[in-house]
């Protein structure tokens, strides 16, 4: 159905709320449905399983190399993540999130769990200043959801941006961020909470950041 956020727009140019969690443009909706590799994996399309590696191998490997304690650990994690993706492929709903964001979410969950089990052995470079992390990228370089998130991050005060980068990008625990920045733990948690709730609002409502 047409999204109630922007009532009265003509079919084909309006926004659609097929799922209560996400608002999508018509073009996004059609594009997601037509190109969803995970949906094809979920329906037993064998070719899509390899295509999934082709499309998301780089994304998952980059995430794993950043968040795992070693390259060997990253390799094990990547295999685990792809098997989880294939097994749970039918659960992917393009009305809720883009495929890349969904893949990223599954990969992050696995990597965070592995980090907890291994005692969160963060690479030394992660404890350096967060400015080492790249700036949030513009919409032209990323998908729609990432572009919206980037706009939210860019609007945050510098301290909040730094905390968010240490948490999301570097994979530090809240305690580790408090220790490395000197900020109280409560402040770290508040910064992360505000930023993520803002991103969630923007993603769900489909508005501009």
């Amino acid at each position, binding site marked *: 159905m047409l999204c109630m956020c922007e009532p009265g727009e003509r079919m084909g140019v309006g926004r659609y709320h097929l799922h209560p969690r996400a608002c999508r443009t018509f073009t996004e909706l059609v594009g997601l449905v037509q190109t969803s590799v995970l949906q094809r994996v979920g329906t037993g399309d064998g070719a899509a399983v*390899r295509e999934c*590696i082709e499309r998301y191998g780089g994304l998952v*490997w980059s995430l794993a190399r950043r968040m795992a304690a070693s390259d060997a650990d990253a390799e094990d994690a990547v*295999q685990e993540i792809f098997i989880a993706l294939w097994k749970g492929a039918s659960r992917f709903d393009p009305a809720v999130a883009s495929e890349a964001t969904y893949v990223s979410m599954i990969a992050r969950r696995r990597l965070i769990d*592995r980090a907890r089990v291994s005692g969160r052995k963060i690479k030394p470079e992660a404890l350096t200043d967060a400015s080492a992390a790249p700036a949030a990228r513009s919409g032209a370089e*990323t998908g729609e959801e990432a572009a919206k998130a980037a706009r939210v991050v860019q609007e945050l005060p510098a301290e909040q941006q730094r905390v968010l980068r240490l948490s999301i*990008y570097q994979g530090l625990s809240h305690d580790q961020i408090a220790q490395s920045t000197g900020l109280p733990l409560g402040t770290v948690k508040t910064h992360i909470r505000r930023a993520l709730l803002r991103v969630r609002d923007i993603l769900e409502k489909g508005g501009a950041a």
Partner: protein
Amino acid sequence: MSNADRVYDLLIQRATEGLSAAEARELEALLKEHPEIDPESMDLAAAAVDQALAGPAAPMPASLRAKLERAADDWSRGASGPVAVIGKRRVAAWGWLAAAACLVLAVAGWWSKLSPVASPAEARQTLLARADTKKADWGPWDNPMVPGVTGDVVWNEATQSGYMRFKGLPTNDASKAYQLWIVDERGMDQRISGAIFTSPGAGQEVVVPITPQIHTRNVGAFAVTVEDAGGTWVSDMKRRVVFAALK
């Protein structure tokens, strides 16, 4: 702090640094009280931020790609067939884009509800009929908690799937669950979690699917332990229940 605030605290913690088993149980219970809260909302927000901050993706090492492609081929051979036909027709029949986009989503949802799903017992029989499936009986184990448990395990390496069957497996209290560990050519140090499950009671036969958390290589044995509910990645293997070795 309200319960809803606590839910968001836990969702954000899960999305950024993970939860302990106790916190995961707390979150699960709280989410039942707050069905209006989307349990994946914070994970998706964190994933979107991650994508926004991450640089261009780096290519995978060739050796890893080769391993994944082998795993993909194994997976494809084990995937079910009939539904794939529906998937292909669905895409090919895309006509009037607006209507079809909605239709496709609806058909996907309806199909998942309407298509018959084999029970674990039926799926076990199907897997057992394959020539490359192995079967082993659970061996006796001196654990006073589970006297007299019997049954077997079937495993197919190519499809990375299998089933455990138990008779006489007692129900755990709510704080505990059974967990299957798979031991392959990498040995006990890299044992693989294969399932976390409960039993309806010693008087009933139970069939449990095996879903390894990573790709296995030449599985040699299976062991079931009693762990805290929700399972663990670091079992000390002290509370073993049964053991089976594939020949």
